[in-house]
């Protein structure tokens, strides 16, 4: 394997990125005083003692959103090399393949849509009074 200036630049970039993210953490570890005692370990809940653990079953509406977001992210990730390669491809087969890929994703979206993920009712029940 040939080691080029490009590789070096990538490595330098990586090191700088890690330093940018990790530097403040390390800095505060060495330079900042630490507070201990009292309720510092208690979960923050607007200044009130929490009631019950947060480890409970929770509505998953947002997870669907996260999943869809991920789907589109992956979509872009895979389409990027396709776009880069597309000018040198020949025939209609690559186009067909790309559409096949997009179709598979679209089915996923439709499935979520059908399941009502995109609907947020304003009120889930009427007054019981």
């Amino acid at each position, binding site marked *: 394997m040939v080691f080029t200036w490009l590789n070096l630049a990538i490595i330098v970039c990586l090191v700088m990125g890690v330093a940018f993210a990790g530097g403040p953490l390390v800095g505060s570890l060495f330079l900042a005083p630490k507070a201990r005692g009292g309720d510092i370990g*208690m979960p923050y*809940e*607007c*200044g*009130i*003692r*929490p*009631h*019950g*653990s*947060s480890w*409970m*079953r*929770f*509505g*998953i*509406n*947002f997870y669907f959103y996260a999943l869809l977001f991920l789907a589109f992210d992956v979509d872009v990730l895979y389409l990027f090399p396709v776009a880069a390669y597309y000018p040198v491809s020949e025939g209609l087969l690559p186009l067909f393949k790309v559409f096949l890929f997009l179709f598979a994703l679209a089915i996923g979206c439709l499935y979520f849509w059908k399941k009502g993920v995109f609907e*947020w009712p*304003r*009120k*889930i*029940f*009427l*007054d*019981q*009074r």
Partner: protein
Amino acid sequence: MNQTATNDVDVLAGDYYTRHFAAGPNDDTLILNMGPQHPSTHGVLRIVLEMDGEYILRAEPVLGYIHRMQEKMGENRAYLQYFPNMGRVDYLHALAWNWAYAGAVERLAGIEVPPRAEYLRVISCEMNRICSHLLWWGAYILDLGAFTPILYAFVDREEIMDLLQIITGSRLTYCYFTFGGVTADATPAFIDGTRAFIKSMRSRLPMFKGLVTDNLILRKRCEEIGVIDLDMARRYGATGPVLRGSGVACDTRRHEPYSCYNEFDFAIPTASTCDAMGRYLVRMDEISESLKILEQALDMLPDGPFVNPKAPRKVKPAAGETYFSVESARGKVGVYVQSDGSTTPYRVKLRAPCFSNLSLFAELSAGTLLADAVSILGSLDLVIPEIDR
């Protein structure tokens, strides 16, 4: 209550109110405290919520985190000594409370108010109302996630504060009224400044409308949220813009006119949609109505003394009781005073509009999204020290 709980269970045991709210930790729903230290409760309001995912199943406001014993203090202080407190009950519309208390004691002790004082009261009170609505507007939009409007609102607010400072001497917690009039006369600088302000505020309102009111995101966040019907308003005693946003044209300034309000020509804005947007529009319209009143009051401002020279220094009303109500930016402010004939009130009851308006919240927010509940809470325009007194 689990008194013998082990240490780590104990940390998550909640407090008195959450334990009354829910028997214990639940598998499916989350008991969550919103407040007292929360940016969108506008002070130290606390709301205990039972959440199912993003939806609120039950909500219960917990009050008292800024209970300042105003009613107890009323029984300990002389009538005039108690006056400065009124600016601190509702610091956003301090002059409405000034007025309610002054009006109650004046009626009880039979003190006359000269016409010029009445006009000065109207002018300062309406300025204060605009000031209060502007802060609400900025803070409400801030709650909904837009930071810029509050910067615009404060530009105009600072102008009002500078003007009011000329006559009242303070920026926020005014104690401008006194028994039988006001404490200082309007200076030419104040009157000219107010006229200029009316003009500048008029030119700003269309900009506010274009910038915020017509914004689609705002409308999506406000429309069809927190619908208050007439029966609900009646059951809870909602007043002010919360009531007028539900289509009832009830404004104490028209309803039981006090002072010289029946001499002015102004409309009572209402909205028939009953939702948060209705309340929003009512408040925005009220700003322009207040400007109208200001303009008329400045034109009609009579000469004469600004305080009744015969008003006694030491107020000592005859035994009896009185209930005086005025319209603040938040609704009907009532002060009920019982006198036993001595120099201190026997009992002072402060009827805060926010107290009744907030009691709607539990019913209003059940079953809504948490984000919408914040929008509902903001649309009620709460000042917490007024609720807790």
